[in-house]
């Protein structure tokens, strides 16, 4: 159908002046017809092309190889190919990036007789694509660098983290211990801490705490807390926490308020009776869980002290407890009791801990901590906070763990 628009469009002129290159080849590739647009691009005359050149003669060597290994087989198999990138060789002009599509014309017996090929100028598009490729290569490079940086950072953090925890827990006559530490992310320093150390004679100190926040600022507080508590261990537990309170308040109260919760205790092992006498104080920390060998369990809800480091002076009441052989005392951070057990945001909670601990009554700190770490591992990615556990048990024997 045609419509008069003040200019008579003919099929011939539409073919010759089409805004793309058009050519037809015989089945063996010899060019049998070509339009003026393509001849202009090539800088060649019709006589030099028709019957004399093949389509592949217009391509670069790399393009010829690609034509033979991809384009020609696809055209034979599918009867058409679309959007393949080539470069045209030209007389007196630089190579021209093009996109090529082709269809096969078959005779009545289904034998291919012609290939009709359309060639689009892709100079601008190719420049853009090259830019994209370059950017992708640059992005790949940057990603590789970022991954390397992250892994270096994680290594550094792991070393720092280790420096904030005891390398080993000392062997105490008549006392068995087990500890567990989990950081929520390898990209962050944890804010939980614990330690067990010798004071004098048969006296030992231990503490477990939780600095508010995570990361380097929290780690700095952890470091201060750890060394302050160790240095203050000669005093009684209440005085040790009081010292830590004063140090944190003095250092951080001005601007960036930093505080922590902690349980600090001393223990004395009586080798004659197998009993372990413990005196501890707590500053705003979840109550330790006492697990008797007979299966009874109780949270030691002593009059609780305030958070450590928010007030200039604070009181930290002390509690005394004696472990008989087979009894255990569990210290933990809220990473355990506030772990999400499901996607409904329910906490693991003190009741569940109480129930599980009573099942492990009369076993060993190792068995208890292992059971709890299994519980935590079961929470998988929901375990969003740092967690520290420290269990102490009276063995009734002069050697640890026997």
């Amino acid at each position, binding site marked *: 159908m045609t419509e008069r628009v003040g200019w008579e469009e003919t099929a011939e002129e539409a073919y010759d002046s089409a805004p793309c290159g058009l050519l037809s080849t015989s089945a063996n590739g010899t060019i049998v017809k070509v339009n003026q647009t393509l001849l202009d691009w090539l800088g060649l005359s019709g006589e030099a092309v028709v019957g004399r050149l093949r389509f592949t003669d217009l391509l*670069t060597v*790399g393009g010829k*190889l*690609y034509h*033979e290994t991809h384009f020609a087989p696809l055209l034979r198999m*599918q009867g058409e190919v679309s959007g*393949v*990138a080539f470069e045209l060789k030209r007389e007196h002009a630089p190579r021209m990036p093009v996109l090529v599509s082709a269809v096969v014309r078959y005779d009545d017996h289904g034998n291919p007789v012609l290939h009709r090929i359309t060639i689009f100028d892709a100079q601008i598009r190719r420049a853009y694509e090259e830019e994209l490729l370059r950017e992708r290569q640059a992005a790949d490079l940057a990603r590789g660098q970022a991954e390397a940086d992250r892994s270096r950072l994680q290594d550094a953090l792991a070393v720092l983290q280790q420096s904030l925890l005891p390398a080993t827990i000392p062997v105490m006559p008549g006392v068995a211990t087990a500890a567990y530490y989990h950081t929520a992310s390898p990209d962050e320093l944890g804010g939980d801490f614990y330690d067990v150390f010798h004071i004098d004679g048969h006296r030992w100190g231990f503490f477990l705490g939780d600095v508010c926040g995570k990361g380097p600022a929290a780690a700095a507080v952890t470091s201060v807390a750890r060394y302050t508590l160790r240095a203050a261990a000669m005093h009684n537990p209440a005085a040790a926490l009081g010292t830590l309170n004063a140090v944190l308040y003095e250092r951080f109260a001005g601007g960036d308020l930093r505080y922590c919760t902690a349980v600090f205790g001393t223990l004395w092992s009586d080798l004659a009776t197998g009993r372990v006498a413990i005196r501890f104080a707590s500053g705003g920390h979840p109550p330790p869980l006492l697990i008797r060998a007979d299966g009874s369990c109780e949270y030691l809800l002593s009059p609780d002290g305030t958070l450590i480091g928010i007030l200039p002076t604070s009181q930290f009441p002390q509690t005394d407890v004696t472990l008989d052989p087979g009894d255990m005392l569990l210290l933990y951070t809220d990473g355990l009791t506030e772990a999400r057990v499901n996607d409904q945001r329910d906490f693991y909670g003190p009741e569940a801990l109480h129930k599980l601990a009573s099942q492990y009554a009369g076993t060993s700190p190792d068995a208890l901590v292992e059971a709890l770490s299994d519980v935590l591992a079961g929470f998988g990615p929901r375990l969003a906070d740092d967690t520290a556990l420290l269990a102490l048990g009276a063995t009734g024997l002069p050697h640890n763990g026997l």
Partner: protein
Amino acid sequence: MDILRRNNVVVTGNPEGRAVVLAHGFGCDQNMWRLTVPALVPEYRVVLFDYVGSGRSDPSAFDESRYSSLGGYADDVVEVCDALDLDDAVFVGHSVSAMIGVLAARKAPERIGALVLVAPSPCYIDDGAYHGGFSVDDIDELLSSLESNYLGWSAAMAPVIMGTPDRPELGEELTNSFCATDPAMARVFARTTFLSDSRADLATVRVPTLILESAEDVIAPRQVGAYVQAAVDGSTLVTLDSTGHCPHLSAPEATNEAITEFLVKLR
């Protein structure tokens, strides 16, 4: 590992007949043999497969170091023959697969009893008096041609091309999928194909060998066909009246006739 799954092995034809293994070259996949298979199925047990990194092979099996030498591809062939327990098979290899077949026949002489080399070239790069047809720069240009056509490839297409058992309808409809490959894998295959020099291996062939060449082939010109024939003892060279590097697609009747004639003579 399931070799038959890894190499997308398809077995068809006459189960009682002699095994004929059809091996595709660089660029596409086993679909290249679609016009050859019908001529062989009445008499022969036909084995088709895709090299790892091509067609619908298992992309997770790709190993750059293994497939950086033709020996790695020959190991694929031997493993496929072992998995099917083939005995005295005829190996038909197109393009680079011709040389892969030569290596495989040496590795597993009990498996491969005859060779058909379609448009073979033991070395694509000119070397002194040897005329391979290309310079190293030409091969670099091919690699950049591949690069510019990678834009037709996207990660979203990958599962479609590599085969999606749960959505088989996707695979068949995708245009150009027979020759689409993960760019990184195609690059390795291209380098291995076009930068290898297997001229010395031709003298090791000890089995009946048919060489098929196109009268006009940019990738494997006539001089190369003559070179291969002279180097393989007792081989037969047939020049097909065809144009291009894929006579099995562009001149299927003549190609099939030459292959079946050779197979009949082997009996």
